[in-house]
């Protein structure tokens, strides 16, 4: 196995640098996936049928909290990777732990929001607008959920094995994923909530 010590730990083996490149490609596919969902949403957003419009539905408070939590988690995730590169195991685990907790908080608010919508009679079945809203937000939320499970798995592995080529590689790839979800959320915030409230 070729090992290049000049690179950061997560890039050192050829296999690992391939994995990072492959993950970037996967994120490219994810961008297309979310772009399609956005295109669907923007096509259907004022086809509300007999259901409520975005303006009637959205509550800005929860959304702001979601945004704050997710942006902060992206920041702490970055700090975690920085700590990893410095070889500091405990700070890295703490930062990753915070990241995941913030993600959990985000999910909590989002689920509450969904429950509120449904209580107001705005369900997936109500109108094309709501269908596209739920599926767009739900896909993002599902990604965050998967990210939470994945991150938890990585934390356990780092606790057991410390920083190895493999765990460093996984953590780094996880951080790419997590930042990506943050970027998607910024688009959701702008094109769904701000646009809807305007």
């Amino acid at each position, binding site marked *: 196995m070729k090992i290049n010590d000049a690179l950061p730990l997560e890039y050192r083996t050829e296999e690992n640098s391939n994995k990072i490149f492959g993950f970037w490609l996967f994120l490219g596919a994810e961008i297309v996936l979310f772009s399609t969902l956005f295109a669907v949403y923007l096509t259907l957003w004022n086809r509300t*049928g007999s259901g409520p419009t975005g303006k009637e539905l959205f509550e800005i408070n929860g959304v702001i909290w979601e945004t704050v939590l997710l942006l902060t988690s992206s920041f702490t995730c970055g700090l975690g990777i920085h700590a990893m590169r410095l070889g500091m195991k405990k700070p890295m685990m703490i930062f990753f732990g915070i990241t995941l907790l913030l993600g959990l908080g985000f999910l909590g608010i989002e689920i509450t929001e969904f429950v509120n919508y449904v209580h107001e009679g705005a369900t997936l079945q109500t109108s094309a607008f709501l269908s596209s809203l739920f599926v767009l937000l739900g896909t993002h939320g599902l990604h965050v959920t998967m990210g939470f499970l994945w991150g938890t798995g990585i934390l356990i592995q780092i606790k057991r094995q410390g920083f190895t080529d493999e765990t460093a590689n996984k953590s780094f790839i996880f951080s790419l994923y997590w930042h990506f979800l943050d970027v998607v959320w910024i688009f959701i915030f702008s094109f769904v909530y701000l646009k809807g409230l305007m």
Partner: protein
Amino acid sequence: MKNKKRWLFTSILISIIMLLSGCNSMVVLNPKGPVAKTQSDTIIFSILMMAFVLLVVYILFVVMLTKYRASKTSDDYEPPHMEGNKWLELIWTVIPIIIVAILSVVTVRTTNAVEKVPAGYETQKPLVIYAASSNWKWHFSYPEENIETVNYVNIPTNRPVEFRLYSYGPITSFWVPQLGGQKYAMSDMVTKLNLVAEHEGSFMGKNSNFSGKGFAQMEFEVLAQTPAEYSKWVKDVKDTAPKLTEEEFNKLLKTEIVGRKSYTSTHLGFAPAPMDMSEHGHDGDSKTESTDSGKEPMDHSDMSNMDHSNMDMKDHSSMESGH
């Protein structure tokens, strides 16, 4: 290899014979109105252009295969290394671009032409006919004459006819090949098709877009008559046919396949077409209307608060019981 060439040759020969003998049966190339004529001319022009392209490729192909086969060269012949040739490659890039450019001009012109009221007929007031599909039949409403037919449509010759198409269900496509190309009929918007018949006669019309079980039976007759005969037919219908009640219409929607029917009123009063532009003061000026219809798919936005949601409900229930 010899039988391959022979086969190619005979197949081309057979095609030509079929083409020549079959011209009458090929409805697309046997137009009876200006729209279909434009399209038929476009098709024949493109066939000629493409035949030229094919000829060039086939000649080169035959030359290469006959001249450079291994059996014709000596055993120690070593083919040369050839990187390519800038000029040759430029030629076979530029000539296709020129061909595509010519075809593009033709396409844009003819597409514009067939979307509009045919040249020479712009000044006449078009006869508006609503053509709606449901299950596996067609409803034709004549708001001007206040009559409605099912599965047949009579039109006067030499007068522009504006078909306004929509569907009570799956997407269908309204097609009368000898008068002009098809257009989709959809449930949430009205599309428009301008046709003119310049010859009298009975023409086949059909739905060409697969729409379920009874699709193959979804044909109708278009009868082009002289204006005098047409007026007489309208009068006949008014004298003899019953009124189309809402109840009768809903029953009709539920029936999967029916024969011909005639009525002395239309369903537009109690079940208007979706997004009907004509009721919003666009009537008359066909030019603006055709551009309007061009933009329709982009702005369905305000559709949901139109009254057709009401219509949707109705026809949903009828569809369900139809199954």
